[in-house]
C-alpha cells in the first residue's frame, strides 16, 4: 500500500549508503515515530464534564459526553461564513481512509490516521509536535478499512485503540508509549477503530469483529494502569429473547420462528460466536452515572439459519452502569437481523418530548434503516421514530441465493457517521447513503476467526446512488429539511451555535449550511474525499473549523492525507 511504499522511499534515502541496491522498491519498513516536546496542559475530569459549554477546546470525539456534536461558539455564523478560508493544511504520512475526529486541548490538536498513527499538532499553525507511528503486529483482521476514528486525552495521557486490538496510553507531551494492554486476539477477528471514551479514570472501549464470529463487548480499563476493570458481553448467554416478529417500526421481518426453535433445540444458544461489535463511542450520562451505546450486527451477517433467536443484544441500544458495567436496559431495533442493517452511529443524549409532550431525558440514535430513533433514557423504551430519510423498498424481503433487492442497501441510511443535534431547534442532523443493493445468502460453518458474512450484499450497478443531509425534528419525527448530494455520504457532521452545520462528501466538497433550512452558504474543494467528522475550536480569539480529507475505503472515495483547518480573516 501507499504508506509502505512511502516509508520504503524514506528508508532508502536515510540508509541508502548502507544497504545500497539491497533496498528494493517494495521493502516494507514502517514509518518511525517522531517524538516531541510539546507544551501541554493536563485535562481534568471537570473540564471534560463541561466540554459542552467550552468553545475554546474540542475535548471529545463527539464534542462532549452527551455526543451532541453541537459546538457552542458562534464567531463563524450565517453572515460571515462565506469568508471562511484555509488557515493551514497538514499532510499526514498515511494516505488511506481518513475517519478521524480531531480533538483540541488548549491549542494542541490530536488527529489519527489509518493504521493507528497519532499526530499532535499546533492547532494554530498546523505544525507537527509529535508523531506516533504504531508498530502494527503482523496479524490484523478488520472490516471496512484500516481506519482509526480518534483519541481522547485525560490528564497528560492520550488514549488510543489500535487496529491490532491494543489499548495504549501515550504521553501527551512526547508521544511516547506509557502503557499497552492487549484487548483481544486479532487472529480471532477482533480489531479496534474507534476512539476510546475516557471518564472518571476509566477508559471505555468496544470492539469490531461482527464479520468474524467474535463475541462482542464493551470494557472499562483503568486509565492509570491499563488494567481491565469490567467487561460487558454484548451477547448474553441467553441471547434468544422474545421471538420478535416485527422491527422497531412495526414491520414484519418474515422470520420462520418454528424453524428457528427447531435449530435452537438442536444446537443450543448460539451466543459464543454471535458477533455484536460496538463500533462507536458510548454517551455518558454524568447525572445518572450510566452509559448508552449501540451494538452491531450478528455473525454471520446475512445467514440466520444457524443463529436462532433474537440474537440479543445485536442491533440494539444498550445502557450500563458506568462504575460496574452492569446491564440497565436495552431496546432491540431488528431482532435476528439478516441484512446487516445494524446500529452503528453513536448515541446522543438530549432532552426530548415524550408521548405526552412532557420533556424528559432522551437518547437518540440514527439507524442504517434511515430512521432516527428517540428513546426514554430511563428504560431505553422507544418514544418515536422519524420519517425515513432514505427510500425504503421491499422491507423486509429475505436474502436469497440469487440476490433479493431491498432498500436501503446494507450500508444504510446512516452508517458509522455521527449525527449532530441543535437542542435549541430540536433538530438532529444526519448524513445518509442511498445505495440500491441485492442481498445474497450462503451458509457455512464458523470459520475460526475468518470472514463470516453468510452471503453478500451487492450494489446494483445500473441503479443511481446518492446521498443526503437531513434535519429531523426529534420531538415530532418530521423531516425539517433535506439536501440531496450526488454520492452516498459517510463521515460525520457538526452543528454550531453560529446557526450552521458543516459536513463533507466523497467528491471532496466540504460545505456549510444554514442549520434552519439547509441553504448552502459556503463550500470548499478538498481534492480528496471529506469523509470524517469536523470539529471546531478557538485560538487567539479566532474560531477554526477543522476536518480530515483522506477519502474512504468502504465506499472507495478518493484517498488523500490532509487535515485542513479553516478560519475567518
Amino acid at each position: 500500500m501507499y504508506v509502505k511504499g512511502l516509508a520504503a522511499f524514506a528508508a532508502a534515502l536515510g540508509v541508502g549508503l548502507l544497504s545500497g541496491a539491497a533496498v528494493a522498491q517494495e521493502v516494507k519498513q514502517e514509518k518511525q515515530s517522531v517524538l516531541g516536546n510539546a507544551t501541554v496542559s493536563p485535562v481534568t475530569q471537570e473540564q471534560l464534564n463541561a466540554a459542552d459549554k467550552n468553545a475554546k477546546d474540542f475535548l471529545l470525539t463527539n464534542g462532549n459526553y452527551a455526543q451532541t456534536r453541537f459546538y457552542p461558539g458562534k464567531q463563524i455564523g450565517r453572515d460571515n461564513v462565506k469568508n471562511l478560508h484555509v488557515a493551514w493544511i497538514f499532510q499526514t504520512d498515511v494516505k488511506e481512509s481518513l475517519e478521524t475526529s480531531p480533538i483540541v486541548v488548549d491549542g494542541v490538536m490530536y488527529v489519527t490516521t489509518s493504521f493507528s498513527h497519532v499526530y499532535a499538532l499546533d492547532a494554530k499553525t498546523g505544525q507537527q509536535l509529535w508523531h506516533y507511528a504504531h508498530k502494527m503486529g503482523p496479524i490484523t483482521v478488520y472490516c471496512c478499512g484500516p481506519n482509526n476514528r480518534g483519541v481522547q486525552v485525560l490528564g497528560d495521557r492520550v488514549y488510543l485503540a489500535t487496529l491490532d486490538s491494543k489499548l495504549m496510553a501515550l504521553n501527551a507531551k512526547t508521544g511516547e508509549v506509557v502503557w499497552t494492554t492487549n484487548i483481544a486476539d486479532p487472529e480471532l477477528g477482533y480489531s479496534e477503530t474507534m476512539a476510546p471514551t475516557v471518564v472518571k479514570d476509566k477508559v471505555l472501549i468496544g470492539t469490531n469483529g461482527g464479520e468474524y464470529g467474535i463475541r462482542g463487548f464493551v470494557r472499562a480499563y483503568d486509565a492509570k494502569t491499563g488494567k481491565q476493570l469490567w467487561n460487558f458481553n454484548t451477547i448474553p448467554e441467553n441471547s434468544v429473547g422474545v421471538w420478535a416478529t416485527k422491527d422497531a417500526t412495526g414491520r414484519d421481518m418474515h422470520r420462520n420462528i418454528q424453524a428457528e426453535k427447531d435449530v435452537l433445540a438442536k444446537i443450543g444458544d448460539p451466543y459464543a460466536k454471535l458477533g455484536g461489535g460496538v463500533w462507536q463511542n458510548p454517551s455518558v450520562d454524568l447525572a445518572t452515572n450510566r452509559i448508552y451505546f449501540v451494538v452491531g450486527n450478528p455473525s454471520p451477517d446475512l445467514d440466520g439459519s444457524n443463529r436462532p433467536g433474537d440474537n440479543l443484544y445485536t442491533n440494539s441500544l444498550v445502557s450500563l452502569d458506568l462504575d460496574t458495567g452492569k446491564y440497565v436496559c436495552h431496546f432491540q431495533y431488528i431482532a435476528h437481523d439478516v441484512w446487516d442493517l445494524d446500529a452503528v452511529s453513536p448515541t446522543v443524549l438530549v432532552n426530548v418530548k415524550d408521548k405526552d409532550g412532557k420533556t424528559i431525558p432522551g437518547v437518540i440514535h440514527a439507524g442504517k434503516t434511515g430512521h432516527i430513533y428517540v428513546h426514554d433514557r430511563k428504560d431505553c423504551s422507544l418514544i418515536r421514530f422519524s420519517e425515513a430519510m432514505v427510500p425504503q423498498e421491499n422491507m423486509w424481503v429475505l436474502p436469497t441465493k440469487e440476490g433479493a433487492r431491498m432498500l436501503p442497501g446494507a450500508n444504510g441510511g446512516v452508517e458509522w457517521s455521527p449525527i449532530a443535534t441543535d437542542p435549541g431547534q430540536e433538530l438532529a442532523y444526519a448524513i445518509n447513503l442511498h445505495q440500491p443493493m441485492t442481498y445474497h445468502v450462503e451458509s457455512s460453518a464458523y470459520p475460526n476467526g475468518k470472514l463470516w458474512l453468510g452471503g453478500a450484499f451487492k450494489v446494483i450497478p445500473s441503479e443511481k446512488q446518492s446521498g443526503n443531509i437531513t434535519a429531523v425534528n426529534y420531538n415530532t419525527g418530521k423531516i425539517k429539511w433535506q439536501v440531496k448530494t450526488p454520492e452516498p455520504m459517510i463521515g460525520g457532521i457538526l452543528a454550531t451555535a453560529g446557526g450552521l452545520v458543516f459536513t463533507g462528501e466523497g467528491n471532496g466538497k466540504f460545505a456549510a449550511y444554514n442549520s434552519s433550512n439547509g441553504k448552502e452558504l459556503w463550500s470548499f474543494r478538498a481534492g480528496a474525499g471529506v469523509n470524517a467528522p469536523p470539529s471546531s475550536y478557538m485560538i487567539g480569539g479566532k474560531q477554526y473549523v477543522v476536518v480530515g480529507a483522506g477519502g474512504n475505503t468502504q465506499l472507495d472515495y478518493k484517498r488523500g492525507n490532509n487535515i485542513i483547518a479553516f478560519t475567518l480573516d
Partner: protein
Amino acid sequence: MFRKWMICGAALLLMVTATRAETIEDKVAVCAGCHGADGKPVDKTIPTIWGQQAGYLYIQLRDFKRGDRKSDIMQPIATQFERDDMLAIAEYFSQKPWPDLGQPRAPKDVAAKAVSASASVGCPACHLDRFQGDGTVPRLAGMGRDYLAKTIADFRNRARGNNPGMSDLMLATSPDDLAALVEYLAGL
C-alpha cells in the same frame, strides 16, 4: 502464547528473527523450487509469495497445517512448522520485492467490467486501494493470472474452504465478471 508474544512485542520479535537467521534460510530453501528463486513462481498455477502481506502468508501456512485449506502439496510442507516458524517465514517473504510477472494490462472494456464488478461487491474495502492488501488480506495486484483464476474457482466451489466469506462474495459475482477481474488484477 499469543499474548506473551504481543506483550514482549517488537524487541522479542527482532531477537527471534535474528537468532534464527540461518535456520530461516534453511527452512525457506525448499520454497524456491516452486515459488521461484527470484520470486517468480515456476508454474503459472503457483502463487507469488514474495512481497505478499506477512499476516496473510502466516494465516495460509496455519490453514494448510490445520487442513482448513486443502493442498496435497502445501499441507505436508506446512505441517513441519510451528507457529513461530510460520510467523518468521511470513515475515521473511513479505520483505522480499514483489516480482513483475510481465503480464499485460487488461484491455479497456475488460478493465471497465472488472472495476464495475469490484465496485458492486466492494473488493477494495478489504483488498485496499490498488489491491495492495494489508495484514491478513492478500495483495492481488500483479498476481499470476492462472493462479487467480484457479483460486477464485476454488473459492466458488468451496474446494478452498478456508475463507467462507470470500467464497460467498465469489458466489455472488458472475463467472463473467470474475473472468474480467482475473485479467484486470493480473495486469495491475
